[in-house]
């Protein structure tokens, strides 16, 4: 993430662009201080690296079971008139979903524990670190972790011959963006959680998206009204972005996906930083 220190935005232009700029205006973030929080997590990870490595296997197992196993039954899928091997179709869907899952897990369960039980942030905020620095640092870590998984998964795709275009190189930054969007919103949601029971809502949001947001079959499968519903979900934009890049179907719609995810992430970060401040700096 490259959020540099920003001035609080002044109400400037009229119209939706100006409004949007005001809504997503972030509190000042010091990248250097956010980095210290990443350093903290890195120190901890050196003691618990096995847990990190284990996270790589989940999408891989999905790829082997659904992609190759089910793929053998399904054969091919048609996307925009282009005939694709099912494995080639589903692999980017799994890549995008795993970027989402990793980010959500990191930013909900992990953060909730630190917020409510370990009181980690109480200690951190009595130093010069601000709530926004802390939020940015945590999200950055979620991104770095997600990037490690995404890169590994992309290499597996490459080895299995599932990458159809050099555009796939951009799938890695795309996954970073997906991670940012979901980690920021996940963290914002976590600040509203009252107890562990509230986490069932996280699953309630993530699971259906994973199953229905075009991870496993194209949008055209749905009747039109349902297509609109699916097209509103963030994972749909994540999957379509990554899929467009790995199968080489690059067009203007990708810009829409990027914009959707970027706005989602910035909004999430803003809410998360504001809420952390409210919760911790009472």
């Amino acid at each position, binding site marked *: 993430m490259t959020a540099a220190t920003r001035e609080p935005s002044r109400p400037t232009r009229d119209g939706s662009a100006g409004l949007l700029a005001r809504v997503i205006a972030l509190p000042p973030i010091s990248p250097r201080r956010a980095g210290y929080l990443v350093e903290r997590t890195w120190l901890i990870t050196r003691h618990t690296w096995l847990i990190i490595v284990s996270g790589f296997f989940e999408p891989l197992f999905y790829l082997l079971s659904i992609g190759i196993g089910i793929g053998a039954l399904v054969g091919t899928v048609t996307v925009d008139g282009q005939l694709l091997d099912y494995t080639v179709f589903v692999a980017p869907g799994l890549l995008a979903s795993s970027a989402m899952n990793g980010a959500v897990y990191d930013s909900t369960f992990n953060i909730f524990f630190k917020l409510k039980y370990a009181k980690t942030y109480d200690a951190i905020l009595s*130093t010069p*670190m601000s709530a926004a620095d802390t939020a940015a640092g945590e999200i950055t870590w979620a991104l770095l972790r997600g990037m490690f998984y995404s890169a590994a998964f992309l290499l597996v795709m490459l080895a299995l011959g599932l990458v159809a275009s050099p555009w796939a190189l951009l799938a890695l930054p795309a996954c970073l963006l997906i991670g940012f969007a979901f980690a920021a919103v996940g963290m914002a949601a976590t600040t509203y959680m009252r107890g562990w029971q509230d986490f069932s809502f996280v699953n309630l949001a993530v699971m259906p998206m994973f199953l229905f947001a075009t991870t496993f079959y194209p949008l055209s499968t749905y009747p039109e009204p349902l297509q609109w519903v699916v097209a509103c979900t963030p994972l749909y934009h994540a999957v379509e972005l990554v899929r467009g890049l790995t199968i080489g179907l690059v067009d203007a719609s990708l810009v829409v996906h990027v914009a959707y995810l970027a706005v989602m992430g910035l909004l999430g970060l803003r809410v998360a930083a504001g809420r952390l401040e409210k919760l911790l700096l009472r």
Partner: protein
Amino acid sequence: MIHARGLTKRFGEFTAVDGIDVDVLRGEAFGFLGPNGAGKSSTMRMIGCVSPPSAGTLRILGMDPAADGPAIRARLGVVPQQDTLDLELTVRENLLIYGRYFGLSRALVRERADELLDFVQLTDRAKDKVEPLSGGMKRRLTIARSLINDPEILLLDEPTTGLDPQARHTLWDRLFRLKQRGVTLVLTTHYMDEAEQLCDRLVVMDKGRFVAEGSPRELIARYSTREVLELRFRADEDISVYGEKLAGLVERIEVLPDRLLLYTDNGDRTTEEVHARGVRPAGTLVRRSTLEDVFLRLTGRTLVD
């Protein structure tokens, strides 16, 4: 170092700190005493720049927390009421990463971490995880952590609550040394012996306000007597009868369920006078008056949760 006028903290309808005025000078050890819920911790959090005041003026090191929070926090050390150590990290790593939050270089942090581990006598546990440490060790580590930025003011919120006597004395000794080095100490406590040991000056807080202010000795002189004579009686006796019998003998008599407390300047003479009035207690004890007597007089004996 710390200057507050009309400092107030409200949480919704509830007023935790109700317009206090306080000045803490450089190199001083200043204590906030009071029962639970008196507003001590809220005051400490405002001074620590992690809780914005609802009203009033607050200046710390000449700066305004609202505008210069990070700059002030950079020069404060904070020992919170509950330990907030990173349990997944080792003892030494806890210090290293905390120092980094202050923007200190890795080399400097390493050097200070080793010095501080030595200072709090944890050098031989440096590579151990924090989780299995005893309460006293964790507390010492928290104090070491609060010193990593070489703070000018050290804020300690109930530093020895829950520790055994040995651990408390070790901590007091370390805090005393810090004071000698010129670090300003601001602490809250409800242990009177702690306040007497450590504080040059203190305030007694109750319901968000100061009810008394001064050095431990001044407070004892003002709100208590030099000595206290405790008369114990058998459980089946009606103590209030004795209370009436002894009325007027000393400045103040307190009637408790099992004993009478007579506040006096000469315990032995009062004992003779008690006998002269025909009162025969099961046991007598003459002791020096302590801050505890002051505290209980000012904040009452009713249990506060």
